[in-house]
């Protein structure tokens, strides 16, 4: 893309980097830059993922795994999963879980990033504070929220009572109607700061000249935001969306440590279902079947989304 220019004046230095500036070197060097990353990822992850997917097609249980008698069964694991009544419930729950989380985290994250993208006294304090949920270890955060929701000792009910929103204690995690949403509140709390951080960094990188130009054109706040700022951070926004999507689908701790998918599977998502198949029933084949479906779903969804984004970007 960029060719060496030989200007009449100062010459390009004759350093080793010149190898990369010309001819073969220039074509090869991007691959070299990318190589370490690819090597690490492919080298470490390929075997487990392929093994995980293949497990879905064999009748692998703890027993057959260790006696070496697992047999190929084609799609039978998948059929058995579809036949499980809990699977339908878990799928619906997963959909709700993902949509709520992604929309809320992206929306709140963007709002917070815009809010924090200014130089006011004390802004550093607020930025650090708003990042706290992300920093707290996941296990401790989830257990803290569980304790806050507890009907006997929880502060959540206490506060809601005092604010007049409730008139009696409500078992948030014990009511099948609210269990999923209660956990969702925690995961939104935990995940939004990261989106905020990404978008804030992206906002900080928007050249001020563009903003100045937009102001001079007479654009007011909203229009400036929509037509000028957002397109600039579009790539980071897409990345944040994809990341949040993946992390939400694969978020195990939040649901497992708060409700284990209960009560009565009201907060069961596909991931916890897979875990139960694998580590309570020891039916690794079915667990892998669910995991593979999740995997394929994620792959398709993100690929489609990103292709769309790239098409718009004209990249």
């Amino acid at each position, binding site marked *: 893309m960029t060719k060496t220019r030989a200007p009449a004046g100062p010459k390009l230095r004759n350093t080793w980097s010149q190898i990369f500036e010309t001819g073969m070197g220039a074509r090869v060097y991007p691959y070299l830059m990318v190589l370490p990353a690819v090597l690490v990822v492919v080298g470490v992850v390929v075997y487990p993922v392929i093994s995980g997917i293949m497990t879905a097609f064999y009748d692998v249980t703890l027993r057959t795994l260790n006696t070496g008698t697992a047999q190929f069964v084609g799609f039978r694991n998948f059929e058995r999963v579809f036949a499980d009544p809990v699977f339908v419930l878990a799928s619906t729950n997963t959909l709700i879980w993902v949509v709520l989380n992604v929309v809320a985290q992206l929306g709140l994250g963007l709002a917070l990033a815009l809010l924090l993208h200014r130089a006011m006294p004390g802004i550093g304090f607020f930025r650090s504070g708003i990042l706290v949920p992300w920093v707290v270890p996941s296990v401790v955060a989830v257990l803290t929220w569980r304790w806050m929701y507890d009907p006997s000792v929880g502060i959540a009910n206490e506060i809601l009572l005092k604010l007049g929103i409730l008139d009696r204690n409500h078992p948030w995690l014990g009511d099948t109607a609210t269990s999923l949403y209660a956990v969702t509140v925690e995961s939104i709390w935990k995940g939004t700061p990261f989106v905020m951080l990404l978008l804030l960094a992206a906002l*900080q990188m928007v050249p001020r*000249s563009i903003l100045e130009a937009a102001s001079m054109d007479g654009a007011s706040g909203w229009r400036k935001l929509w037509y000028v700022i957002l397109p600039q951070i579009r790539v980071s926004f897409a990345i944040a969306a994809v990341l949040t999507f993946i992390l939400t689908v694969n978020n195990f701790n939040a649901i497992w440590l708060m409700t284990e998918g209960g009560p009565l599977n009201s907060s069961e998502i596909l991931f916890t279902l*897979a875990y139960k198949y694998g580590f309570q029933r020891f039916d690794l084949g079915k667990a892998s079947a669910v995991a593979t479906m999740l995997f394929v779903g994620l792959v398709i969804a993100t690929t489609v989304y990103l292709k769309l984004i790239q098409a718009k970007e004209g990249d």
Partner: protein
Amino acid sequence: MDTVAIHPRQRERSAPRVVKRSFQLPRPVRTALVYITLWIAFIWAVFPFYWMIATSIRPKDEIFQRPPSLIPNGATLQNYIDLLVGAQFWRFAMNSLLLTVAVTIISVLISVTAGYAMARHRFKGSVTLPLFMLYGQMFPPVLLLIPFYVQLRFLGWLDSLWGLIPVYLSYMLPLCVWLMRGFFSQVPFSLEDAARMDGCTRWQAFWKVILPMARPGIVAVATWVMIHTWNEFLYASTFILSDTKRTLPLGLSGLIGQYTTDWGVLMAGGVLTAAPILLVFFILQKQLVSGIGGGAVKG
């Protein structure tokens, strides 16, 4: 390229345009609103953490009190003393620190170079490669445990902090590369070209011009890697076996008993685990502000 030619007629028009068309609140009210919103967001984010701290300093017999009091009635640092005096905590912290520093440095190095290459150059696979790497992240990690275990055992990397590094890198790198590619693509090409026209090698252009501009992005990525490595639990718990190599999150989970949990100590542990990262971030967040201010292009 980024400048806007101002039409002479527009210059005239811009003066009377002081009268804003859309409704805007007076300045002090806007500032107050901003601060109020900031405080609401702050309280929402920090309250559970405050609750953790409050629980960790409550005396043991106050933890189950009903109704729970927002502010602890008694205060004791016994939980913190218990944790900090034992040698175990410091060993776990040191392990976590080593692991985190190593993974962060390596991740940043690799992802910055890879991300830059992908953002700058259209080469075969520059579009599909990042996507492909991301796929590895999408398989539920819990179900990868057994094959991972077999693989690590085969390589002799079990029960070793160094063995954990490639495992962590494998799922940090795809996202880091993605992010860095995204951030680098926000940096205008023209800057680099201008620097090179001025006689810089590609390397110098990168180091002196592009990198400082991408600093907020790098800080964001480094923070992400730091936090996730520091707090990572699943892989550490499966692949680290000896007590001496455990990391902080493992130490925390050891506090959660089958029958009962010492909540005060657990919460203290959580606070102590989160505190160093918060401190680091507080220092780093200044770096989030773009260095050159992004207004380097003039005329």
